[in-house]
């Protein structure tokens, strides 16, 4: 059963592959293509950040092309965070901007021949867990324990915690659904492109470019926006309401 279930198993090329393995504490750990692609994305982003930093050090009154682009990006991300989170936006716009740029570049890296790092559940689960930790850090920092307990038993009075397990499950479902949404969207795009290239052969020459625009650019940008939007909404909800 080496040729797989689909027609031409050897040509379907969307799986994560190991690059090399090493032993640590008796466990075999694989460095996979996801790690390599994340490293490439990271290097590109770091190069861009260094260039942007340098451009902003020599910033001029009338901005040049590159300075203009950098200012545009930063302004757009800050406006997004401030628009959704209101007065809490100042504290979180660095984090939101960072994950926005990282997820966006990861999603569209499929265009440049990489295997998108967000099509690996490890990456998206890590992002979801960061969001989860931030939500609960904010929650425990700005609410008293009594408020949280009342909240967790919410439809019923706090001395009757029958609803507590259900609320606990819905809290735990937040990072899982966040990460699975991003992962499955990017993975479905990757699989569709692999199916088209693998099964159609020479027929798939020029027109799959249009599909790349949809699966990589459009879908990737939408999912990035959704991930950041939901992260911001959850964090804002973790703050105590003001009325």
């Amino acid at each position, binding site marked *: 059963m080496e040729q797989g279930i689909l027609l031409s198993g050897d040509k379907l090329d969307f*799986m994560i592959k190991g690059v090399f393995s090493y032993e640590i504490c008796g466990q075999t750990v694989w460095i996979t293509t996801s790690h390599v692609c994340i490293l490439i994305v990271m290097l590109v982003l770091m190069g861009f950040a260094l260039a942007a930093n340098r451009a902003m050090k020599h910033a001029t009154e009338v901005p040049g092309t590159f300075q203009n682009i950098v200012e545009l990006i930063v302004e757009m991300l800050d406006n997004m965070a401030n628009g959704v989170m209101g007065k809490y936006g100042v504290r979180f716009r660095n984090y939101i901007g960072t994950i926005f740029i990282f997820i966006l570049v990861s999603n569209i890296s499929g265009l440049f021949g990489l295997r998108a790092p967000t099509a690996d559940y490890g990456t998206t689960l890590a992002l979801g867990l960061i969001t989860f930790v931030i939500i609960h850090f904010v929650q425990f920092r700005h609410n008293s324990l009594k408020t949280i307990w009342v909240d967790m038993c919410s439809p019923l009075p706090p001395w009757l915690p029958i609803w507590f397990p259900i609320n606990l499950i819905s809290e735990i479902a937040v990072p899982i659904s966040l990460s*699975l*949404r991003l992962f499955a969207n990017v*993975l479905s795009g990757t*699989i569709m492109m692999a199916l088209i290239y693998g099964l159609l052969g020479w027929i798939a020459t020029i027109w799959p470019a249009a599909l790349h625009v949809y699966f990589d650019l459009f879908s990737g940008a939408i999912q990035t926006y959704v991930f950041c939007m939901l992260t911001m909404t959850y964090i804002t909800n973790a703050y105590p309401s003001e009325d």
Partner: protein
Amino acid sequence: MDFNENFILGCSAIGAGLAVIAGIGPGVGQGIAAGHAAAAVGRNPGAKSDITSTMLLGQAVAETTGLYGLLVAMLLLFVKPLV
């Protein structure tokens, strides 16, 4: 009765096909959301950008259930948990 590996793989493929039927629900839901967004833009063209972003957010959240179906299909086809 003794089921061999190929029989289980065939049944897994049928199960994967059944699992992606989950795509019907999000399709209907996204269509309803897009239709209502179009109606809202028709009523209030000034709020087009707000309506579009809200619609896309809601559609992406509604899409999740369909993607769970896709994940189940992918697990059945490639991870082969039943073999």
